[in-house]
């Protein structure tokens, strides 16, 4: 049998059969329905929905705010991961455990809590208000929500990579007269680069599709603070299933592109590790 390598263990047919059946029924068939619904539209109608001014406005916000959130997490994710792996301080273990909070916390909860904190009379919003910075109900609020929910992806991608940086190489660089900045640029950055990019892509992917936390803080004005997933919901509420499916397809293709990028990045990271002999 060439499909699989022989093994003495039983249960291959049963478990693989159940897995593929269940996967097809719960995930693949429903996704096929989405592609079919969008595919049954005339190309002109499809483009009309996908390229309408309102849709384009929503892409700008969804993709722009997600890129910004992923960039913020690129910087702060690195700082946090560095702090957690390199420094010992009271409460480090607790902070480390808390990083996963946005994974476990329902998005509706993060949504209403962030809105309250960043509203004009909120704990943080009241200090930003005199500075003329409005966060809640603006695109800034969208970015804050997306930053929170995608933060763990960046930190968790970086932590193992930072542990892998060879400290003896850093020490050698330092004894040979390299400045900290030079050692950082030539030794630390190259090692963690694939992880940085993976974290960035994962954060971006999570942020683009986010719905629950954003709709509370966004204000949801068409063309201004309306994200693409919300526009899909609006189409569904108007029973315009095809329009919703068309927009869904755009986002789905985006997700596939991101998944592909992550796989390529990880393959690249592995190749680099092999090449440097580790």
């Amino acid at each position, binding site marked *: 049998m060439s499909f699989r390598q022989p093994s003495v263990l039983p249960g291959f047919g049963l478990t693989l059969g159940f897995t593929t059946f269940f996967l097809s029924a719960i995930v693949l068939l429903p996704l096929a329905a989405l592609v079919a619904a969008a595919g049954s539209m005339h190309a002109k109608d499809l483009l009309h929905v996908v390229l309408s001014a309102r849709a384009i406005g929503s892409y700008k916000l969804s993709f722009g705010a997600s890129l910004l959130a992923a960039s913020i997490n690129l910087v702060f994710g690195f700082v946090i991961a560095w702090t957690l792996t390199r*420094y010992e301080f009271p409460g480090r273990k607790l902070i480390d455990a*808390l990083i996963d909070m946005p994974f476990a916390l329902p998005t509706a909860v993060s949504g209403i809590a962030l809105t309250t904190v960043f509203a004009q009379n909120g704990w943080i919003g009241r200090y930003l208000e005199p500075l003329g910075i409005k966060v809640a109900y603006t695109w800034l609020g969208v970015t804050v929500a997306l930053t929170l929910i995608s933060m763990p992806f960046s930190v968790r991608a970086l932590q193992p990579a930072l542990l892998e940086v060879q400290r003896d190489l850093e020490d050698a660089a330092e004894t040979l007269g390299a400045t900290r900045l030079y050692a950082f640029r030539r030794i630390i950055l190259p090692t963690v680069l694939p992880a940085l990019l993976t974290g960035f892509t994962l954060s971006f992917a999570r942020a683009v599709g986010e719905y629950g936390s954003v709709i509370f803080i966004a204000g949801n004005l068409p063309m201004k603070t309306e994200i693409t997933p919300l526009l899909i919901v609006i189409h569904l509420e108007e029973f315009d299933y095809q329009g919703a499916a068309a927009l869904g397809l755009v986002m789905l293709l985006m997700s596939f592109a991101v998944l592909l990028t992550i796989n390529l990045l990880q393959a690249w990271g592995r190749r680099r590790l092999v090449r440097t002999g580790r």
Partner: protein
Amino acid sequence: MAAPAFEPELTDADVRPGQHTWVHAIVRWLFITVSLTFLAALLLAPLATVFAMAFARGLIPYLSSFADPDTAAAVRLTLTTAAVVVPVNTLFGLAAAWAIAKFEFHGKSILITLIDLPLAISPVISGMVFVLLFGLHGWFGLWLQEHDISIVFALPGIMLATMFVTFPYVARELIPLMQQLGNDEEEAAITLGAGGWLTFFRVTLPKIRWGLAYGVILCNARAMGEFGAVSVVSGHIRGLTNTMPLDIEILYNQYDFVGAFAVASLLTLLAVLTLVVKTLVERTGYQRR
């Protein structure tokens, strides 16, 4: 420019060059401060707000918000949904992990990618696909209507959408764990004459129990907290198809902040519990990916 008061520990910091210069001390102080400020503003302040708002008018209004029949119904619906979805996805996760971790076959990496697919998809899309299948204008819509079965805007739709979203969690925990643990003990058990089920329950299950526990509780937290996908299929009928996260939205939009944050506080406690279990699981020595 004096260095801040900083006591270097007598660890490897002393044998490393350039570790007790004032530059290092300042950088260290800066990194820790920036990290803590960022997390305090983005993570701790919202968490504290949940409880501050829930108890804003004291304990009695907090407790009485759960007496509201619609909120009580939402809690029941969420528990019912999780009670169906979590066992089913656990069973799936175990089967998928057994097939993927114990055997070598073609197309394995594609299968893993497909299992992870729901994680990359917007929750709104995860809900919408079931509307497209079972909604009135969907593939099976007419047939379902003729047979008087409602899936969308009813309990089955909520369960399906939740199942879709939480589909990968148990499998994702178990696959790397079982791959890392290897097949030797199972192969020994089988060659010594144990049956497949006996091997699974007596050899494999004890080895993976902590990873399984975390996968199940994470799946449960996501199932109880799912908002986007459920919002699309639920129809928002208070007392009937409103889960706890959807109830939060309705209460919040009605300016019933104590009620909204009271329900939110329950889900926050569930999230904290999930993280506690995760920390305990990791203490048993099992390293996640």
